[in-house]
């Protein structure tokens, strides 16, 4: 495809074959994370220039969106590849008491909608998720949200180039969101 053809596609839904690949990618990614294969995830599914973000959202009146005082976007995650790698390295220390015994995490990825991005070989993908975490005996929490991903095909493999996560809860009803979405 030349760049002219590409720009005409930008914003258009991806074709069926591409959609299938993307869906498979997201499902495989979720399974890698569920199975705590964090290095597999980082090495094979995440681009080196990734931006991984989870901004908080204020609860404000529709008519009053004005920024007050010195407010700015507060990110629970605002990680590049190195920071993600640091979080992963923490799992390897053997000192992460909260994860031993291990948590059980299941990720459900739904409502996948993909369209060609403005960059060639890239797609914008929206998906909704439920992440169910179970710790110890009966500490069970489900967190719901949405992701807007930018995926990029490099050497025939899709990779995560950026992810912006939205959680619907303003007050997070869990002790932390220290898990990858």
């Amino acid at each position, binding site marked *: 495809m030349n760049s002219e053809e590409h720009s005409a596609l930008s914003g258009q839904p991806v074709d069926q074959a591409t959609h299938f690949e993307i869906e498979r990618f997201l499902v495989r990614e979720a399974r890698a994370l569920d199975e705590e294969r964090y290095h597999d995830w980082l090495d094979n599914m995440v681009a080196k220039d990734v931006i991984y973000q*989870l901004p*908080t959202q*204020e*609860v*404000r*009146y529709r008519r*009053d969106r*004005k920024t*007050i*005082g*010195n*407010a*700015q976007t*507060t*990110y*629970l*995650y*605002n*990680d590049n590849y190195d*920071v993600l790698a*640091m*979080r992963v*390295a*923490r799992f390897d*220390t*053997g*000192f*992460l*008491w*909260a994860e031993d015994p291990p948590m059980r995490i299941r990720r459900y990825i739904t409502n996948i909608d993909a369209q060609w991005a403005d960059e060639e070989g890239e797609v914008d993908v929206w998906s909704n998720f439920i992440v169910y975490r179970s710790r110890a005996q009966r500490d069970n929490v489900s967190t719901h949200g949405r992701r807007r991903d930018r995926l990029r095909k490099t050497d025939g493999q899709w990779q995560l180039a950026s992810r912006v996560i939205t959680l619907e809860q*303003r*007050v*997070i*009803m*869990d*002790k*932390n*969101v*220290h898990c990858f979405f």
Partner: protein
Amino acid sequence: MKPLDQLVQQEGAIQDRSIYWDNDVYQAEMEHIFARCWLFLTHDSIIPEKGDYQVTTMGEDNVIVARQADGSLKAFLNSCTHRGNFVCFSEAGNTRSFVCPYHGWSFGIDGSLQDVPLEKQAYHQEIDKTALGLRQIRVASYKGLIFGTFDESAPPLEKYLGGMAWYLDSFLDVPGGIELIGPPMKSTLECNWKNPSENFIGDGYHVGWAHASALEIAGGSLASMKGLNEYDKNSGLQISLPEGHGFGAIWECVAALHPGPPGVAYQQWVDQRSPAVKEIVGEQREKFYRAHWNATIFPNCSFLYGTNTFKVWQPRGPHSIEVTTWTMVEKEMPKELKDMIHADNMLTFGTAGILESDDGENFENCTNSNRGHSTRQGTVYLGMGQGHERQEAGLPGIVSDGWVNETSTRGMYRRWAEMMSGKSWDNLSTTADLENNQ
């Protein structure tokens, strides 16, 4: 509820476990502590302009703090005086009025009742609007930190802070002062509010153990604490104020939890500011300016100066809290440095933070073990360093060597017991009394 001298024993070294679980204790805390103390609301930097407001809670009471036309502050209950509905559902904003969605009563930014629909036709123009304003709450600011109290008899805020104010000035009196960056993160912990308050006021002990994994990957000057093998008791101290506040300080460690370039930039900033700070607050407090602090302003406002996380633990029943987290920075820092500190705070003590997640588990489990009836008949122990405290000329309060200590934690529980006894403010301990009795 058991008698108070059983709930806290041996000068704060023993706590009865029921204080972390029983509902009658919790309800008494709401009455004797949360309805009386000065509680942290917000910071000047968050609501600077006329009509700016923030909604928060004091105990479990929902309140609005609003900037008035003359620059002053007012705080009032977020509950309509007609039938009780909330009058504001946004967490912050800028407005000219708060209009109740139930029957449309409208209140000004000072909380006064302005308009009542059908005032003439239905109320026969007889309603006394002046008597139906939102309930006012005393509000005061200490160098930008805004607090409120429900207690008309509470001493002025500065007196309530007691000896803590002198220490706080080590960083509040820097040129330009400090600011808090929001909007805050908000999350929940299924723990009693005292578990995190005691952790921040004086649990230096857990740092090397609970946070071993974070210290291992982040490195920095505290990494040697990992596994609790090494520790020099001259590396810091703990301070306990009779007003219940307290902190631990680690010398020359202000940027210890900012590894990498942000830590270097922050340390440079502190080094460059130190001479001016010394000029303003003196040599002793310049040392505090350059230290890392873990602190609590009694009862539920905690911060780590240096790491610059600033938190309020809002009680939500005996076994539940809401955590509100801002980032604390010096106002005159360059924007890039503020951003780096803000990002580091999210990474360490944010809701997805690599240290926060260790703490949350511990706080919850220290509360939840007391679910068991027989477990709850027992006590827990805070005896570290007891008998080694001292008073020191020029340092308000009780001083103890070593930031791994439980001096400030015992002080928090002494104050807790004192307040729970329902004593009047005149009969509660103060830093001034401690100094006079020396």
